[in-house]
Each structure stands twice: as structure tokens, then as C-alpha cells.
């Protein structure tokens, strides 16, 4: 007859995936029963919790289990850096554009299409995210998290300031809020005292910085240099700079350890999914024709801004899981001994 305690343990073990149960259930029941006190009728609370936790993690796979491993945490700091750079660049571009109009026409707001305003909000957003970028580069993780929270509050204040005159402001700026919150989460996940550059390596870091700088310079040149000369009649100078920047970025990434590089790509897919979600959202609600913000629009906004990045993560993690499992099984057949 099976003891009631064993039945209860077997019920708990049902949380494990079938492959794991097949491999370990009998053995685990043996260990659990051997560890039980005489006359014990129920699993101890701590034991039950540990089984449920380990079983759920086994079900979610090694990818979810390892979300806090150093490879993920290193990748998170790199992705957070990209998030902060994107937010600083988006606000910075508007600031530079506004300043240009100010210098040329003495009217900072012509560029933004609103009269009489100032550039305070774009300036504040630029400075706030640049501060986050500096903190990440200095590997000051706690300061970076705190500054990123402040930067998100600045984004909220900037939305609130324009809300009375632009009803769709909050909807149009959803991406900034979403990307800001994502950056905060990535920074919280990243490792303390390990700069993004330690992950990228000196040469990889130099290549990626060079690539980003080149991309920024060519993007800034575009409005000033609409008809840049062609190289051999094939490619304009600014396009050539962008292509070189892309090649440098890819070459820099190639120098990162494989496991970390794959995780960086998964997290970057999540980061870039945010502006894509904004684009999809604006098309879905027909923002240029919509008259007012309805509760339905708010629901669609929240669902899309959360759903699209989550979907990107799920897809990326699934591809990663498949690739690394294939790798593991190959290396096991190479190094495994015939006695297993």
C-alpha cells in the first residue's frame, strides 16, 4: 500500500515536465520519503514550496531559470544603455532642431508646431537620459536606476505639460514611457559594478561606440546636407556612413561571448519592439483621424505597448532556448561517457 505522504509527494511532483518526471520521479520520491520524519503525514511547507518552485522552473525551461545568470545580467546592462541612448537621442534631436529654428528664425517652437512655447521639456528629457547614459557607462548601477526613475518622471511631466493643448499627447508619447520603464527594469536586472564595456570587451566596446557615433553624426548631418555627394555614383556619403556604422556595430557584437551576445540580441529585440508597437498602435487607432481619446483607445494603447515587447521577448527567448538546447545535446554526445 502506498503511504499517504508518498501520494502527496507524487501529487506535488506532477508540476514537473514529463521528461523530468520520467528521469527523476522515483529517485526524488525515495529522497523525500527518506528525509521524512517518522509518522509524518503531510509534506512540510518549505519542502512543498521548494518542489513547486523547482518544478515550475523546470517547466519554463533553462532559459527562464537562468534569467538572473550573469549572461542575462550583462546583456541587460547593454540593452539598458541602448534604451537610454535612444531616449536621449529622440529628445536631443528635437532639442537641436528647436535650437536651429531659434537661431535661424528666432522662434524655437516653429519646429514643434506650437507657438510661444519653450524648449524646456525637450531639454529636460535630453539631460535626464544623458545622465542615465553617463551613469551606465561609469557602472554606477544604483545611481543609474535612480536617475532612470527620475527620467521617467520627467517624461511623465513633459506629457502632462502638453496634455491640455494636445489631447493625444499621452498616446503619441506612449513609446517614451514604455521604453523608459523598460530601461529602468533592465538596469535593475543588470549586475552591480560591472560596466557595459566590460561585457563588450575593449575592442568590441570601441567598435560599438565608433558605430554609434558615426550613426549619430550621419543622422545629424542629414537635415543640413540634403544633397550629399555620391561615392562613385552609387551611394551618398551619409548613406555610406550609416552602412559603415552598421558594420562596426555588428563587428563589435561579434566580439562578445556567444551566450551573452545572443541574450543582448533578444533584449535589443524587446527594446526596438517598443517604437514598433507605437507605430502599430497609431495605425490601429487611426490617430490622425481620431477625434478624441476614448477608453477603448486607452485599452488598445496599454495592450499593444505591453503586448508587442512581451511577444518579442517570448519569440527571442524561444529561439534562444532552441539554439542552446541543440548546442547542449551536441556537446553532451561529444563529452558524455558511454556509462550514462
Amino acid at each position: 500500500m502506498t503511504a499517504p505522504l508518498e501520494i502527496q509527494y507524487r501529487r506535488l511532483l506532477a508540476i514537473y515536465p514529463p521528461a523530468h518526471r520520467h528521469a527523476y520521479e522515483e529517485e526524488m520520491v525515495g529522497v523525500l520519503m527518506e528525509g521524512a520524519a517518522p509518522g509524518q503525514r503531510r509534506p512540510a511547507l518549505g519542502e512543498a514550496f521548494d518542489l513547486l518552485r523547482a518544478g515550475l522552473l523546470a517547466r519554463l525551461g533553462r532559459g527562464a531559470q537562468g534569467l538572473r545568470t550573469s549572461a542575462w545580467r550583462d546583456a541587460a546592462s547593454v540593452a539598458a544603455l541602448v534604451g537610454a541612448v535612444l531616449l536621449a537621442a529622440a529628445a536631443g534631436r528635437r532639442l537641436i532642431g528647436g535650437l536651429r529654428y531659434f537661431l535661424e528664425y528666432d522662434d524655437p517652437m516653429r519646429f514643434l508646431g506650437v507657438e510661444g512655447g519653450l524648449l524646456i521639456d525637450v531639454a529636460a528629457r535630453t539631460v535626464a537620459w544623458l545622465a542615465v547614459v553617463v551613469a551606465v557607462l561609469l557602472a554606477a548601477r544604483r545611481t543609474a536606476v535612480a536617475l532612470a526613475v527620475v527620467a521617467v518622471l520627467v517624461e511623465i511631466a513633459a506629457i502632462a505639460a502638453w496634455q491640455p493643448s494636445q489631447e493625444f499627447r499621452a498616446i503619441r508619447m506612449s513609446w517614451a514611457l514604455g521604453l523608459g520603464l523598460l530601461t529602468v527594469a533592465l538596469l535593475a536586472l543588470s549586475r552591480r559594478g560591472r560596466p557595459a564595456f566590460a561585457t563588450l570587451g575593449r575592442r568590441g566596446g570601441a567598435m560599438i561606440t565608433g558605430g554609434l557615433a558615426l550613426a549619430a553624426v550621419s543622422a545629424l548631418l542629414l537635415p543640413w546636407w540634403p544633397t550629399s555627394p555620391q561615392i562613385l555614383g552609387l551611394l551618398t556619403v551619409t548613406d555610406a556612413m550609416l552602412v559603415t556604422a552598421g558594420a562596426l556595430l555588428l563587428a563589435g557584437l561579434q566580439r562578445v561571448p556567444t551566450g551573452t551576445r545572443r541574450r543582448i540580441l533578444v533584449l535589443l529585440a524587446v527594446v526596438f519592439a517598443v517604437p514598433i508597437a507605437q507605430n502599430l498602435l497609431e495605425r490601429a487607432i487611426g490617430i490622425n483621424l481620431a477625434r478624441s481619446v476614448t477608453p477603448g483607445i486607452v485599452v488598445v494603447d496599454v495592450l499593444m505597448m505591453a503586448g508587442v515587447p512581451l511577444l518579442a521577448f517570448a519569440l527571442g527567448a524561444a529561439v534562444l532556448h532552441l539554439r542552446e538546447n541543440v548546442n547542449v545535446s551536441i556537446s553532451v554526445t561529444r563529452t558524455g561517457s558511454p556509462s550514462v
Partner: protein
Amino acid sequence: MLPSMTDTPMREPTFLVLTALASGPQHGYAVLEDVARMTDGRVRLRAGTLYAALDRLRTDGLIEVDREEVVQSRLRRYYRLTGVGEKRLAAESSRLRQQATLAEGRLRARHDLGGAPA
């Protein structure tokens, strides 16, 4: 073996399970008891945590099954350290020893300078 595995510090349960198996093949329950004994009862691994570690270590090729026995109609599987596991454990203990030596050296220097608060 995964490339990320060799350069990252090992988690304590993993380190203790490998240390338990370093003295020879053991079955799951014996590993639990050995870990508790080695740490004077400070670390008491539970079955869920133990088998998560064993499964991962097997997949990574650090341990393998030595033999199976049936005792009082219960399955007992003995695990042993592989060559890769031995190397990894040696690398991890040398890393820990280096850190401990560093800390002790600095504490001694601090004491010699009279920097320690009364």
C-alpha cells in the same frame, strides 16, 4: 559545454554538491546529508533544489550516473564527478582561495596600521 559556464562564479548549492561528490560516488539523499554535515547544518538543501542542480550538472557534463540500486523497493541513483567536473571544481576552489587570501591580507594590513575601530 556552454561557453558562458567556465567564466562565471558557481552558486553555493552547485559548489557544495560537486564538493560532496569529490570524495566519491553518492546517491541523492547522501548528498543532502553530506552538504548539511560539511556546512555544520548551515546549508540544508531540499529535494527540489538538489535535483535542479543535479539535472543541470548532468546536462553540462560535470557529473554522470555511476550506478543504480534498489533499496527497500526505492530507486537509488549514485552520481560521480566527471573529468570536466573535477576541473571546474578545482578552478572554482582556486578562485575562492584567491579571494579569501586577498581579504585576509587586507584585514591583516588594516590591523597592523591600527585602522580597525576599537
